[in-house]
């Protein structure tokens, strides 16, 4: 099992959710987060003075998936969340030792 943590543009959330549903990926946790990448944010101007805003609002999607589904899910996210401009986000994949469904006590792949 793997945990897929995806940082995307907030306005891409609906598209990504819908695309993942189409390939049968339903479970996810979504957070509003702030972050920055290599471009170090943007500049905003208020009353003639420039301010560097280096933490931008982003959306984080957390998905735990079976090993064999990871490729399809990540491909779908990249395909849907990409605009080609700087700030499209990143995907982090890490191993998951165990998953337990609290309601039934099921473990492993059955609990995903």
């Amino acid at each position, binding site marked *: 099992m793997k945990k897929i943590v995806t940082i995307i543009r907030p306005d891409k959330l609906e598209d990504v959710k819908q695309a993942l549903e189409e390939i049968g990926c339903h479970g996810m946790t979504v957070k509003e987060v702030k972050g920055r990448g290599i471009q170090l944010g943007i500049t*905003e*101007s*208020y*009353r*003639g*003075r*420039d*301010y560097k*805003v280096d933490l931008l609002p982003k959306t984080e999607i957390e998905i735990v998936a079976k090993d064999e589904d990871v490729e399809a899910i990540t491909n779908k996210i990249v395909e849907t969340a990409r605009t080609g401009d700087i700030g499209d986000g990143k995907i982090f994949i890490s191993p998951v030792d165990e998953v337990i469904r609290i309601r039934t006590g099921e473990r492993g792949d059955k609990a995903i």
Partner: protein
Amino acid sequence: MIPGINSGDTAWMLISTALVILMTIPGVALFYGGLTRRENVLNTIFLSFVSFAIVSVLWFIYGYDLAFGADVWGVMGQLANPFFGGVLEANTLSTYAPTIPTGLFAIFQMTFAAITIALISGAVVERMKFSAWLAFIPVWLTLVYLPVAHWMWGGGWLAQMGALDFAGGIVVHVNCGMAALALVLLLGARKNSRLLPHHLGYSIIGTGLLWFGWFGFNAGSALGASNLAVSAMIVTNASAAVGMLAWMLMDKVKTGKPTLLGALSGAIAGLAAITPAAGYVNFTSAMVIGFVAAVCGYYAVSYIKPRLGYDDALDVFGIHGISGIIGSIGVGIFASPLINSITTGGLLFGQVHLLGVQLLAIVSVGIYAFLMTLLIGKIIDKTIGLRVDEEHEVQGLDINLHEESGYRLS
């Protein structure tokens, strides 16, 4: 019905009074609230609301009399009717506006006192103790606003010299701008003065309410449903519009893009600047006043403030103070006897005297407001303390001073 009352004038002044109330709560409150960070939005709005409430009470206990009562040595009015005792019962017409009731003139003027103090709060947001602000309001009202209002409007020494201030360029805007400057010098800069507006939507609504309410402020200062009120309304709108466009132009020239906050700031600069002149100048003069005020305001907040290093959080001095000065000088230049027969005209009509007394009024009120506010602020600092704890400032004032949050998303 009081003999001699004019129902048209009275209706217009009732509406004008309500319009000016709308300027403070919620106009200024929302305008300022949107420009602070989210952890301070309630405190910022609260500063305006509580100013309005305290002034609403004190004004009728003694404020109106000290500002507009019978003149004592040109300095202060006489306290003839404390607690407004007997005034409402007497059913008299105002000596300042002989076609409307005394009480209506009094509450109209109360709204000016309230907004002046609420405007000052914009300079000190995000780091001033709420208790210190509560103490500041009655003391500043009594020692600064009331005398200055008497000098200009209540028959005091500046009025006797012929100085003109139609709706508060000096009494409201120079006064609050200089007071704001004094307070921020005492308070010092915020821990992080690069905090960005958390919700410009509030500021847009607030500015809209201010622009709308300003017709009560300026056209109401004609004190009747008259041709002068119409004239004041037109020049007020013109100055605001030109001020807005001028700030957009400055933005475009300096940074390449017009900003909405800049446009709002320019409109307010135009509104503040035309305030002293609204009953004395024509459309063309109003456009000049609005333009100059916006350009000067832009330079004040984007160049002078960072260079001098003071932290006037929401630019009360840079916008209201500067615009009040520009507009009050504008009276001395552009005042026209064709608009208002009370004046023989300004510099453009060959009269030098008016410009001289306008400058005297700006300088004397500016210095008085600045020094008195420094003194009041210093005393509060030594007793209650002006500034919140560093930890509270960093965490935000809403949760620490009021145990409330502006936003609860879960």
